[in-house]
């Protein structure tokens, strides 16, 4: 279907006009945008998620770095406009390679071009889909008693049941999960279990946890992609399913949870679109290390630094997280989801998860 991009083009031209007018008025050109850092995220009471605060940063042509950013911005805007005009789209990686031809404005790494694309979202309040940019691949997968209707490449609608119509790997979440592409039909589950590691996802699938506990299993694949988070949010809101996050017990996993529940720092401009405030952290918690006597590893220097940084992170300022993080710093240990195998392959599905689900009031049966 054709989308109307007039609004997007207007926004993008607005940036070019701002720069041009600065030049005409003998002002050193600059762009102002919110500071995209931990120090500048505030809880939005209305939206129930974390958004960028009032602090702003200036990209000014006064410095070489600033001027480079402005020039890159100009090139990226031009590129996006040309894609809109020719009805093409590109991956972020493709854009990075295309930028090789931008002479002075070329990027040193894809991370830089990805960040600038996000900056453009922040400035224009558009989404990267509006810019015809998409991520590389997601590959996050899902297994459970749910039927998804997807609009396929040739424009036909196809219904997929995420137990009967899929293999062991489950249904693969596409990068576009908006209603125009995907809709949820016939959901028969009590909750969503979002799992960090592929190994644990496969364990639960093999143990038929989705069937025995009426769960929708989603593999997060580490730090979840936007589409995965958006998918979870839609499922949570449209089908009113509780979301439980099941990760390793280390600081990096808590950040995975935070990005699902509160919104990630990098994408705080679209937190209300990606975050699921109702999600709950199921485990593995530092308390679990003690309660379940789990095998552990020592915290590394980086782990400790990350934990301390989380203590200062506004998103982790609730009693539960403060307690757990401090406990972990005291223990000096971390553990993994798969450490539960210490008690046998079925322990996680027969004992651990049912106990934890009962704790959060989900356990039925």
């Amino acid at each position, binding site marked *: 279907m054709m989308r109307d991009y007039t609004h997007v083009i207007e926004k993008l*031209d607005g940036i*070019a*006009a701002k*720069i*041009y007018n600065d*030049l*005409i008025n*003998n*002002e*050193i*050109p600059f762009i102002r945008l919110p500071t995209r850092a931990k120090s500048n995220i505030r809880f939005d009471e209305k939206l129930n998620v974390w958004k960028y605060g009032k602090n702003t940063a200036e990209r000014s*042509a*006064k*410095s*070489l770095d600033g*001027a*480079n950013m*402005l*020039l890159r911005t*100009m*090139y990226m*805007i*031009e590129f996006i*406009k040309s894609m809109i005009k020719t009805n093409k789209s590109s991956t972020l990686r493709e854009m990075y390679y295309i930028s090789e031809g931008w*002479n*002075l*404005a070329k990027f040193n790494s894809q991370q830089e071009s990805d960040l600038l694309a996000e900056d453009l979202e922040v400035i224009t309040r558009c989404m990267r889909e509006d810019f015809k940019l998409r991520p590389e691949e997601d590959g996050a997968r899902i297994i459970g008693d749910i039927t998804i209707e997807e609009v396929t490449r040739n424009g036909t609608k196809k219904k997929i049941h995420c137990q009967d119509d899929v293999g062991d790997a489950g249904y693969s979440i596409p990068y576009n999960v908006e209603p125009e592409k995907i809709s949820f039909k016939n959901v028969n589950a009590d909750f969503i279990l979002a799992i960090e590691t592929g190994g644990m996802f496969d364990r639960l699938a093999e143990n038929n946890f989705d069937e025995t506990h009426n769960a929708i299993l989603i593999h997060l694949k580490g730090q979840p992609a936007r589409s995965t988070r958006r998918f979870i949010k839609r499922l949570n809101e449209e089908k009113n399913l509780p979301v439980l996050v099941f990760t390793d017990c280390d600081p990096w996993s808590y950040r995975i949870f935070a990005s699902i529940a509160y919104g990630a720092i990098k994408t705080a401009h679209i937190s209300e679109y990606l975050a699921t405030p109702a999600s709950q952290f199921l485990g593995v918690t530092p308390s679990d290390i003690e309660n379940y006597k789990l095998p552990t590893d020592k915290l590394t220097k980086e782990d400790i630094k990350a934990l301390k940084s989380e203590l200062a992170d506004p998103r982790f300022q609730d009693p539960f997280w403060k307690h757990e993080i401090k406990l972990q710093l005291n223990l000096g240990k971390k553990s993994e989801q798969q450490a539960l195998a210490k008690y046998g392959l079925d322990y996680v599905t027969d004992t651990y998860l049912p106990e934890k689900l009962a704790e959060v009031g989900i356990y039925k049966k």
Partner: protein
Amino acid sequence: MSKIAAYELAKKQKEISVAEFFERNKHILGFGNPTRALITSVKEGVDNSLDACEEVGILPDINVEIRNHEDGECKIIVEDNGPGIIKQQIPHIFGRLLYGSRFHAIRQSRGQQGIGISAVVLYGQLTTGKHTRIISKIKEDRPAVVMELAIDTNKNRPEILNEDIIHWDKPTGTRIEVNIVADYTRGRRFVYDYLQSTSIVNPHAQIVFREPDGTKHVFERTTDILPRKSVEIKPHPHGIELGTLIKMAKHTNSRKLSAFLKKEFSSMGERTTNAVCETAQLDKNLDPKKMTREQFLALHQAFKKVKIMAPSTDCLSPIGETLIKRSLKHETKDISPEFIVTATRPPSVYSGNPFQVEVGVVYGGSLPKDKPVKLLRFANRVPLLYQQGDCVSTSAISDIDWRRYGLEQPNGKGIPIGPAIFLTHVSSTLIPFTSESKEAIADIPEIENEIKLAFRECARKMQSHIHKKVRRAKTREKFELITKILPEIAKKSAGMLNKPIPILDNIITKIMDVVWIEDLIEYEKIINPEKHHPTQTTLPSADTHPIDREREPGYITKSTIMIVNYKRKPQRFNLYAVIPEDAVVGTVTPKPVKITKNYIKWRLDTIPPANKVDVYFELAGLNKGDFDENDLYVENINPAYVIGADKWEGE
């Protein structure tokens, strides 16, 4: 009591032979082990050759060759193009210990004791049983003399085993071939280092080194100017020992004490002489030959009590900053250092002996960043390779806090760590070595202080270099910004909006907000068809210097300075360009208001915003690369506005 004990003892008392003396003292003479013996032998040969050439004003061409490296035996050959040695003297110079012309003279020279080369001959004889071969030629159209020598170790007298004349291609020169037991495998690196170091402080010498396997190293001559000939001076009262004083008095031709003091010592004028005699309570009409020991003692003590002018220091022959820099540059070109700075202290005096300190610092390039700084130490143009830890230069360097000059140094003490080479050269009429092997300079406070002052000066230059580099890099960035990035931004934004490209001049001055000075140095080779002769500058040198220099073929150094006013207001200020003292100024545009031997000064016309002024000057008498960076200063403008020049602090 049938025997008198003293007679019995007398039977055992005899003159000890030089062989015995040598055997007992070989460690202090530099022959302690086969590695040291190798280097000492090469060193004595080369030092002699350099001294001989300079003595008569010949640019030294020295060949060092080491052969037959087997069974721990080496043949060392040192050959020069010096004046040669007359036949009668050859046996004495090479075959007799403690024989030389320099022992009594007070002047800056390499060798001092006269042990040097004959010790090598003796060492060779003792370790291999082989004789030393000398070839010498003193005049172009005469044959050369070949002599095979040994030392009669009982009598300390030379023995001539063979003597002949041969044809030798060289106009003049001396060649020594000596076989010694030496450790070439271990000593090789030191020989190379020694020759390289020698070449650094003797830029007027060409040294070729051939190794046993045929490898040939050439340490090139980088200047055709011989060092200023050092001048012999009279002893200064502050430096004289009592025994020497007595000996001098016994041999003097003066009949009166006052005449003796005035004639045979430096810095002793009428007034000082009277003051000394008065203090010592001695009649100035005393016959010095008839003075008692007590009288000498009183005189000697009076020397210390009376204020005596320091000795004249023009007897010294320093290398000079330009030449040190050039040598360092030449020898470190593989490292491609970031910069080389040098400092020369004015001559000074310790215990009546004049001395002068010169230092240099090579920084950056491929030098290791995590290793202690490499120290190169020299005394009277001779490299010091051993006993670094005992040397005054090492303690002086260790005492400076190098941390603020971009080097690492735990606790701010010790040899700093970083990508640098430190060179110290001390010249003196008497280098106070810690021992006879002459490897370390003793801890004399005056010398230590001068070395510290010299290195501090270098350190400040280093700092300003680093500082300037950072500022220039920042400005270069801005320059890229205004010349490339900003016009692109303007073009793109205008293109997207289908509008004309805006004019950027005002924004450029706003972004830059500086007066920007950039310079360019080029060299133009002068072709001089005339075959030139080496010039030796003699004292006083100041006036004759430039004239001698101008005859030199070489390069014209062309310096272009571009000044752009990127401020929003017109700027008007004075510009100073520092020039080397030994350079001759050629064309200068615009017309300067002042040229001194140290700088050129311009009073620049008002430069409107976004306008440019070019300043140009030429220097002659320098080699390519001697002047490789402009040292610019500004006056009558806030120096913070200016990139590329510092505040003029006066002369």
